[in-house]
């Protein structure tokens, strides 16, 4: 009975080490940093708004394993990302690359801003020209009449 209790206590004490098994600390901090960086840049395809680093899905687990294996096999970061893109497409990049296909998405907002700005400037210029024209149309005489009418209106 006592032994059983002792074993139970031992199990409790050592439980955290057993639990920590999945996230084994990697020996080399440089590799650890690369692993974390890569896993955070790749999307988990199963739970699309999470990175492979964040996700608990089985697929993310497999892909983490894959990244780790490839780091140890001496692959460069670009090679590992390319490996994923070849299999899962560009969507796997959490941070999309700038290339010919999506260039418009990158610079589109700036183009819209530029076009919008130009239209605004033109519009303001036209309005200004119109209002100064309007001033010219009204003669001195009309001005005085208008003033008169306004003042009379005020007396009523």
């Amino acid at each position: 009975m006592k032994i059983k209790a002792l074993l139970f206590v031992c199990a409790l004490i050592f439980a955290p080490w057993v639990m920590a098994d999945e996230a084994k600390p990697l020996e080399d901090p440089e590799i650890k940093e690369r692993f974390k960086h890569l896993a955070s840049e790749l999307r988990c395809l199963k739970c699309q708004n999470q990175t492979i680093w964040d996700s608990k899905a089985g697929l993310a687990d497999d892909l983490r394993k894959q990244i780790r294996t490839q780091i140890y096999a001496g692959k460069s970061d670009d090679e590992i990302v390319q490996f994923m893109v070849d299999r899962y497409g560009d969507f796997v990049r959490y941070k999309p690359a700038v290339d010919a296909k999506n260039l418009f998405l990158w610079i589109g907002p700036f183009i819209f801003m530029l076009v919008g700005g130009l239209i605004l400037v033109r519009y303001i210029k036209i309005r200004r020209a119109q209002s100064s024209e309007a001033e010219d149309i009204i003669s001195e005489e009309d001005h005085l009449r208008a003033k008169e009418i306004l003042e009379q209106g005020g007396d009523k």
Partner: protein
Amino acid sequence: MSRRILPIVVVVVFAVMMGFFYKGLQLDPQKLPSALIDKPAPAFHLPQLHDVSKSFSPEEMKGKVWLLNVWASWCAACRSEHPLFMQLARKGDFPIYGLNYKDQRPDAMQWLKQLGDPYIASFSDLEGNVGIDFGVYGVPETFLIDKQGVIRYKHVGPVSRKDWIEVIEPKMKELNG
């Protein structure tokens, strides 16, 4: 002049955006285009589910149009497409092979025993590494591979009768020429 052009520009931009929304909002974000379309099917050697001593490689299928269905006994959606595959297997027009993805052999064999086995052969991808090579991100997935061993189409999720009749079967017939 700009007074006349401006409304036209606004209407055109609006129409284009509506067009994108009309198309875009109907897409299922869970269904991703495969990066492997029109690329050669990745090579692999896997033991067959029913006979571990025999292996299978897609090379053997050169000259045939065939389906590779990714399935697992733990996959609930696989059950819904299974009767269709059984029917297709009985018709026997196209060879269907199974990639048994991240499954336990006894479970997989039990599953086939219970529901029937539409596959000419299934291969065990215990670690899911072949799955990664094929860009599998959810089960079931079905690949259509042509005579040259090139992946021509990928269906994500269970294949419905409609998918089969409207999309996959015509493609297979076309490839069979």
